[in-house]
C-alpha cells in the first residue's frame, strides 16, 4: 500500500470519526447532564434525515433542508422530553432502556407510516459535489471535507457553550449535583428540556449531513446508535472531549482495521482465508477496542470515577 | 507489657495538595477503648478507611495482631478480624433487620457458595443474627425492613452486624451519631462491656461518651495526631484546648 493511500485512509477514518462525533456529542451531553440512557437517539438522527430529505424534495434547497432537520429533530426531542423522558430521570437505567426502546419502535414505524417503506432521495448540493485535489495529490470528496469542518465547528461550539456561557455553567452544575442547581434557583426542568432538544438537534444535523451521502431509510439510526454508544463509553460518559477522542479512535480503528487487517493477515495465511478472517476481525475491531479501553480505564478515557 | 493488637505506623494519605493523614502512628491495646477525636475535616474518616482497607495509604504500615496487613484489602482485613461500623449507615436497606445480621454471620462463616437451602432456615446463622440483635436491643425489630428503621436504630444495627463478625478489634465510626441522649447512654454502657470482648478504636463526636469510655484518647487535627493520653491528660493538654476544645468552650 502506498503512503498516499494510507494518508487518504487515515483521512477517511478521521472523517468517519467526525460523523460519529456529531451523533455521540448529543448522546453524551444528555447522559452527562441527566443520567439518561437514550436508545431513541438514533431515531432523532433518522428524524433529521427524513425531514431534510422531505424539505429538499419540496424546495430543492439543501440549506433549508438542514434547517428543517435541526428544527424537526429539536422539536421531536423537546416533545419526547416533555411527554416521556422527564418522568424517567429518577428511575433506574432499566426503565429508561425499556421506555426509549419503545420510542424506537414508535419512531421507526411511525416514520414508515408517514414516508412509506422505500428509501428517500437526498443528495449533496451541487456546490459541494465532486472531489477536490488536496496537497500531495489526494483526490478527496469536497462534501466529506465539509463534514469534517462542520464536525470540528460543532465540537468548538460545544466546548465554548459549556466553558463560557450561562447555560454551560448550569449544565456543569447539573452534572455535578441536581439538587444543588435547583437550589440555586435554576429552572431545572426547563434546562433539561433545552439540553435534550440540543442533543436531539445535533443528532438531526448529523442525520441530515450524513443522509446526503448515505441511505435515508427507516432503521438508519440503529447501527449509528450502537457506534455512538461505543464512542461515548470509550471516551468516558458525559465528556464532550471524550466523545471527540472516542469518535476519532473508533473512526480510525474501523476504517484502518478494514483496510489493513486483510493484507496484514495475508502475510501469515492464504489470501482467500486472510480476506475472510481479516474482514471478520475488522468488523469486531471497535468492540475489541472498547473492551481493551475499559479494562484499563473502567470509566472510559475521560470519565470521572 | 503486652503487644498492641492494632498498630498504625507513620500512615500518610494525600488527596492532591491536601494532606488528609499526616504521619499518624497509634496503637490499640487489648481490652481498651481508644477514642479518636478531632474537629470536622480533621481526617478521622480517612484514617478509619485506611485502617479498614477501603483506602490505600501512600506510605506507612498497618499491623494487626502482629501481622502486617498493609497490602490487604477490605475483605481480607475483615476476614482477619477487623469489625467496622460506618459513620453513615451502610446496610442492605431492602432486607429485614435480621437478614442484615444473618449476612454478617454468613460473612463470618465464609460459606457463601451454597445455593439451595434457605439461609433464613439455617438455625445456626439465624441464632447468631438474633443474638446480636438482642445484645443491642433490636430483637423486637427483627422482622422490620431496614429502610423503615429510625436513624438511631440503624446505628445500633451497624453495631449488631459488627458483633456477628466476632471480630478481634472493633473500628467504630461515630456509633452515637443521631442516637439521642438516652440511646447514647445505653450504647455507652454497652460499649463499656464490649471492650472485654475486643478492643475498640472509636471515632466519636459525643464528648460525654468519649470521656466516659475511653482509656486513651488521640486528638487528630489537620491529619496529625497532636496528642494522645487519658481523658484527664487530654483535658489538660494546652495544644488540644487551643486547637479543639477551645472552640467548643467558646461556643
Amino acid at each position, binding site marked *: *500500500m*502506498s503512503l498516499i*493511500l494510507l494518508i*487518504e*485512509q487515515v483521512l*477517511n*477514518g478521521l*472523517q*468517519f470519526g467526525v*460523523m460519529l462525533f456529531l451523533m455521540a456529542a448529543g448522546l453524551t451531553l444528555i447522559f452527562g447532564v441527566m443520567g439518561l440512557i437514550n436508545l431513541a437517539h438514533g431515531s432523532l438522527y433518522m428524524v433529521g434525515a427524513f425531514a431534510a430529505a422531505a424539505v429538499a424534495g419540496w424546495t430543492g434547497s439543501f440549506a433549508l433542508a438542514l434547517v428543517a432537520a435541526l428544527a424537526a429533530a429539536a422539536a421531536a426531542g423537546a416533545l419526547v422530553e416533555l411527554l416521556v423522558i422527564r418522568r424517567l430521570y429518577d428511575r433506574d437505567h432499566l426503565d429508561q432502556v425499556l421506555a426509549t426502546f419503545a420510542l424506537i419502535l414508535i419512531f*421507526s*414505524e411511525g416514520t*414508515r407510516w408517514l414516508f*412509506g*417503506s*422505500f*428509501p*428517500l*432521495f437526498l*443528495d*449533496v448540493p451541487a456546490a459541494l*459535489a*465532486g*472531489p477536490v485535489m488536496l496537497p500531495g495529490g489526494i*483526490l478527496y*470528496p*469536497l*462534501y*466529506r471535507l465539509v463534514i469534517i469542518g462542520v464536525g470540528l465547528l460543532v465540537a468548538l461550539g460545544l466546548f465554548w457553550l459549556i466553558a463560557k456561557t450561562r447555560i454551560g455553567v448550569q449544565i456543569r452544575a447539573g452534572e455535578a449535583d441536581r439538587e444543588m442547581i435547583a437550589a440555586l434557583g435554576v429552572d431545572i426542568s426547563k434546562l433539561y428540556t433545552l439540553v435534550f432538544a440540543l442533543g436531539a438537534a445535533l443528532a438531526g444535523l448529523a442525520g441530515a449531513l*450524513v443522509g*446526503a*451521502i*448515505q*441511505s*435515508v*431509510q*427507516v*432503521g*438508519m439510526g440503529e*447501527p*449509528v446508535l450502537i457506534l455512538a454508544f461505543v464512542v461515548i463509553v470509550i471516551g468516558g460518559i458525559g465528556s464532550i472531549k471524550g466523545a471527540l477522542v472516542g469518535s476519532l479512535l473508533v473512526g480510525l480503528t474501523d*476504517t*484502518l482495521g*478494514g*483496510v489493513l487487517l*486483510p493484507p496484514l493477515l495475508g502475510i501469515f495465511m492464504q489470501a482467500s482465508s486472510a*480476506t*475472510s478472517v481479516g*474482514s*471478520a476481525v*475488522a*468488523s469486531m475491531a471497535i468492540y475489541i477496542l472498547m473492551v481493551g479501553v475499559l479494562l484499563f480505564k473502567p470509566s472510559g478515557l475521560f470519565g470521572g470515577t | 507489657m503486652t503487644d498492641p493488637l492494632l498498630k498504625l505506623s507513620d500512615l500518610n494519605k494525600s488527596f492532591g495538595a491536601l494532606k488528609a493523614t499526616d504521619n499518624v502512628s497509634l496503637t490499640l491495646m487489648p481490652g481498651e477503648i481508644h477514642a479518636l477525636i478531632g474537629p470536622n475535616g480533621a481526617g478521622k474518616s480517612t484514617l478509619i478507611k485506611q485502617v479498614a482497607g477501603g483506602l490505600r495509604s501512600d506510605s506507612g504500615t498497618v499491623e494487626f495482631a502482629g501481622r502486617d496487613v498493609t497490602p490487604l484489602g477490605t475483605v481480607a482485613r475483615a476476614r482477619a478480624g477487623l469489625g467496622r461500623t460506618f459513620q453513615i449507615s451502610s446496610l442492605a436497606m431492602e432486607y429485614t433487620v435480621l437478614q442484615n445480621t444473618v449476612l454478617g454471620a454468613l460473612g463470618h462463616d465464609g460459606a457463601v457458595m451454597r445455593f439451595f437451602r434457605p439461609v433464613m432456615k439455617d438455625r445456626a446463622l439465624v441464632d447468631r443474627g438474633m443474638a446480636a440483635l438482642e445484645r443491642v436491643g433490636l430483637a423486637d425489630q427483627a422482622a422490620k425492613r431496614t429502610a423503615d428503621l429510625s436513624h438511631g436504630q440503624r446505628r445500633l444495627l451497624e453495631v449488631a452486624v459488627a458483633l456477628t463478625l466476632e471480630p478481634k478489634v472493633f473500628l467504630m465510626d461515630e456509633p452515637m451519631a443521631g442516637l439521642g441522649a438516652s440511646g447514647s447512654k445505653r450504647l455507652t454502657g454497652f460499649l463499656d462491656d464490649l471492650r472485654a470482648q475486643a478492643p475498640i478504636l472509636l471515632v466519636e463526636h459525643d464528648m460525654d461518651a468519649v470521656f466516659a469510655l475511653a482509656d486513651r484518647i488521640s486528638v487528630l487535627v489537620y491529619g496529625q495526631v497532636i496528642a494522645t493520653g487519658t481523658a484527664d491528660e487530654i483535658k489538660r493538654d494546652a495544644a488540644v484546648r487551643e486547637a479543639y476544645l477551645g472552640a467548643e468552650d467558646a461556643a
Partner: protein
Amino acid sequence: MKLKSLIAAASIAALSAGMAYAEAHGGKVKVGMITTLSGGGAGLGLDVRDGFVLAAKGNENLELVIEDDQRKPDIAVQLADKLIQSEKVDVMTGIIWSNLAMAVVPAVTAQGKFYLSPNAGPSALAGKGCSPFYFNVAWQNDAFYEASGSWASENGIEKVFLMAPNYPAGTDGMTGFKRTFTGEVVDEVYTKLGQTDYAAEIAQIRASDADTVYFFLPGGMGISFMKQYAGSGVDKKVMGPAFSFDQGILGAIGDAALGVKNTSHWSKDIDNEANKKFVADFQAEYGRLPSLYAAQGYDTALLLQSAMGKADVKDAAAFQAALEEADFASVRGAFAFAPNHHPIQDIYMREVVKEGDIVTNKIIGVAASNHQDVYGADCKM
C-alpha cells in the same frame, strides 16, 4: 436413521394430520404468504405482495393469508408453523431473504406443502437440498452474477474490483461472478454487513488498476455506496446485479446511478404483452413503477393459477407436474423450469438511464440466454 428417511417420517406424520382438512377446500387453494412488511426491508416484501395480489385479483379459488416476518428468521419459522398448523394452507410463498428461506423452506416442504419462492434462491435449495415441493420462480442466487461475469468477459472488461458484504449471499455472489469471468480480479473486498460508509473502499478502488467495479450491496448499503462513489470522482465503470439498482432504490440514489450496468431477468421495457399489461396495471393499481420484486410476485401468482387450472392441489403429484410445466405467460418472456425446479430464463444487461425526470433501467442486451444454475447436478429428486 438417514436424514432423508427422517424427513419422510416427519412429512408422513404431518400429511396424515392434514388429510382431514382436504375435503374442506374443494378445488380451492389456500396460499400462505410470509414476507417482510415492517422494518427496514419492508419495501421488497410490499412489492412482492402487491405484485402477487395484482395477478391473483378476482380469482375466487385462491385464498391468500399474509403474515409479516419482520425479517427475523425465528419469526418466519413460527409463522410457517402457524400457516401450516392453524391456517392449513396448501401452498406457501413470499419470503424475500435467503437466510429466512433457508430457515423456513426445508420445514415447509418436509411437511408436504408446496413452496413457491418469489425471491431468494440459496444454492443449497437448488442442489443437495432440492425438493419436489419447492419451486423457485425468481432465480437461483448466482444467476445475475454469472450472467454479469460472462457479459463482462465478452464486452472488453479486463480487470475488475469485487466488493460485497461479508456474509454468505455476498461471498456466493462474488463466487458466481468469478465462475464465468475470464479476465483478472485485481482485488476482492468484503465489507461489514450493514456498513454505511465506504470511503475506505472507494480509496482502495481508486488506487487499484481495475477498469470496472463489480459490487453487490443490497438495500441501503448500495444506496450509500453509489452516492459516495459518485461524489468521489473515481471514474471506473460500475456493474452489479439488479438488486442494487431496482426501481425502489434508484429513486433514492438519483443521478449518481446513471450509466451503471446491471443484470436482471426482468425489466419494465421487456417487450411482450404480459409485461406491458403488468406494468400498466401495476401503475394504475398502486401509482408507482413496479420493481423486479413486484414482477416476481406477479409471476408467482400466474404460475400458481396456471397449475390450479390443471390439477387439484390435494393431488400432490399432479399439482407438481402442473407446476413443472410452467404454462403461463411470464412477464419475462420465455420461462421454463429446470429439473431442479429453478428457472431457465434469459438474463438481460440493463443500463441506468433517465427518462424525463425519472431515473430508471433500460435493456441494452442479453447477458446470458437460457441461463440455468450449476447446482442442478447435485439435485436428486
